[in-house]
């Protein structure tokens, strides 16, 4: 039907298409199957990893640090593979320098893990609280358990790359440097020990910062809390433990990790930090993992039940 003719001269310009114009793009309602609710945590984990990978400072920098540690330690191990580590041997260890590199490197991997906790781990939940992320998640069919599990799994995978891949690489190199088959067979447990030490470190450096990130509504506050607890409270515990010869040093996360590693590799270390007995080291690591996950769970569940993402 044609429009009726008029003799009115238009005084205004013809209406242009607004930016709110509708683009249909063949829209059809989605009728396919939906992924089971129990798989939501994997989506969150993948997103945690992909956002951590963005930019140079979040995951790439600590990962690069871990890579550098691995390469330097690997080079040292290669060069000194046939020489005795006199410093340790003089303390009755009778240990090859190259054998000591794997456990000793864990102190450096722990530092890389701490860097990652500062760039990502200790701000995960606080960032979501600050940006309204809780509303984003819980306005969908996402349960608190999916959220905590997904975030933790993402952090654990990233931290494992930093704290487990390096020791495993060094352990593999040590196997490669074995001079005889029997030595190679004797050294095989090194792989398992490196994996256990790396996994323990990854668990600790994923769970505890996640828990600290649940303690604040602002990213910077959470980071400050974590850094303060790690650097100051941890050092105080370690120092008191060293001075009083008590296992209090186990409360210092790097001391707990290095103690566990040295015990696994039968290394007796008398350095600046205290070395605590194995049960205390394991106990402290487990306690920190439980505390970290518990704090995260408490915060997320509490925020959800009181009205997510803002004033109720």
């Amino acid at each position, binding site marked *: 039907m044609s429009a009726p003719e008029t003799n009115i001269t238009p005084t205004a310009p013809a209406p242009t298409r*607004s*930016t*709110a*114009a*509708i*683009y*249909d*793009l063949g*829209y059809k*309602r*989605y009728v*396919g*199957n*939906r*992924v*089971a*609710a129990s798989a*939501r945590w994997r*989506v*969150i984990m993948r*997103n945690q990893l992909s*956002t951590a990978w*963005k*930019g140079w400072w979040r995951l790439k920098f600590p990962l690069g640090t871990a890579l550098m540690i691995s390469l330097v330690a690997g080079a040292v191990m290669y060069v000194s593979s046939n020489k005795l580590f006199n410093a340790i041997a003089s303390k009755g260890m009778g240990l090859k320098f190259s054998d000591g590199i794997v456990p000793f490197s864990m102190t450096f991997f722990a530092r890389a893990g701490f860097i990652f906790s500062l760039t990502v781990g200790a701000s995960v939940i606080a*960032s*979501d609280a600050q*940006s*309204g*992320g809780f*509303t*984003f*998640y*819980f*306005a*969908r*069919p*996402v*349960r608190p358990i999916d959220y905590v599990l997904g975030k933790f799994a993402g952090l654990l995978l990233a931290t494992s790359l930093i704290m487990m891949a390096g020791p495993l690489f060094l352990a593999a190199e040590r196997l490669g440097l074995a001079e005889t088959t029997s030595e190679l067979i004797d050294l095989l447990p090194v792989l398992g020990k490196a994996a256990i030490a790396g996994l323990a470190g990854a668990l600790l450096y994923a769970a505890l910062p996640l828990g600290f990130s649940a303690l604040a509504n602002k990213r910077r506050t959470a980071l400050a809390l974590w850094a303060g607890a790690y650097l100051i409270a941890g050092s105080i515990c370690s120092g008191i433990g060293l001075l009083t010869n008590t296992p209090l040093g186990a409360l210092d996360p790097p001391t707990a990790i290095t103690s566990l590693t040295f015990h696994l590799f039968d290394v007796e270390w008398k350095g600046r930090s205290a070395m605590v007995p194995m049960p205390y080291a394991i106990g402290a690591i487990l306690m920190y993992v439980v505390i970290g996950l518990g704090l995260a769970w408490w915060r997320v569940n509490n925020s*959800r*039940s*009181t*009205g*997510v*993402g*803002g004033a*109720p």
Partner: protein
Amino acid sequence: MALEPIIVVDNVRRHFGAIKALQGVTAEISGKIIGLLGPNGAGKSTLLKCLLGLVPFEGRATVLGMSAATDGAAIRVRVGYMPEQDLLLPNMSAVELCAYAAELSGLPRSEAVQRAHAALYYAGLEEKRYQPVDTYSTGQKQRVKLAQALVHDPEILFLDEPTNGLDPKARAEMLELISEMPGRRGCAIVLSTHLLGDVERVCDQAVIMHRGAVKFSGTVAELRQTRGGDSEYTVSVRDNAHDFAAALTQAGLANEVTSPVALRVTVDPAIGPRQLFALAAAAGAQLRSVEVQRDTVEAAFLRIIGAANDDATAQANQAKAGAA
């Protein structure tokens, strides 16, 4: 034909400590675009959160036939929510955010990405969708919030103050999007707002909340005539409204001349405008138009809220007198 209610709330109560956010909300809500009206603190956002199963409450509430108390997750699969406050995750582009939102709602990865693009096109962010959401303007953020709410194909969209902070142009565009959505996407919309102009422009149904209770529920047309029958008319005459006013006064009808050719008249609602025509014929006045005088949504809203305030004051005085 009466529309089937998409939301039913029956005596829903929710309090935060001493603050009673919802005090026995009861309503059956149907329609395509439903305006949830109320002043700040009326309980609109809390009601939406209850309906999404996000906060526990007393009473009974169903959305699309599902209980908000027990089937919250199932409701959130079929309902989209655009909250008032920010919910944009940092370090993500709009398309990543929307795809992530769709995946969290259960869509497979490839479908989620496709629909994220489509939703952003729909919201008018086609050229900006790869930029980080942190860099967006307020209007663009509102559009992303809308896109993430509809990316998983919801049957109902809860929009909480969607035009907040927008300039007039962006506001008009947002309202245009909202008004076209039921037709284009086949979803109903619950528009929570305190901007009455928004409701007047796009809504067909209205629910007015005040102090945690529903004060009105019905169509916008009903809201505008809640005075009780059509008794007030605006009458245009060819000339000399004063002469016709005198005839009306003589017949006992209250009136007010508003211009030389227009006047406002109150008639007996049982008789209606027929009385006006008869009087005009007798007085020799030529009527140009007779229009029912109805409230704007704003006037109706203020009257309902005002009446609620008066009731509350009267109850408080009564209680005080009883105590004395």
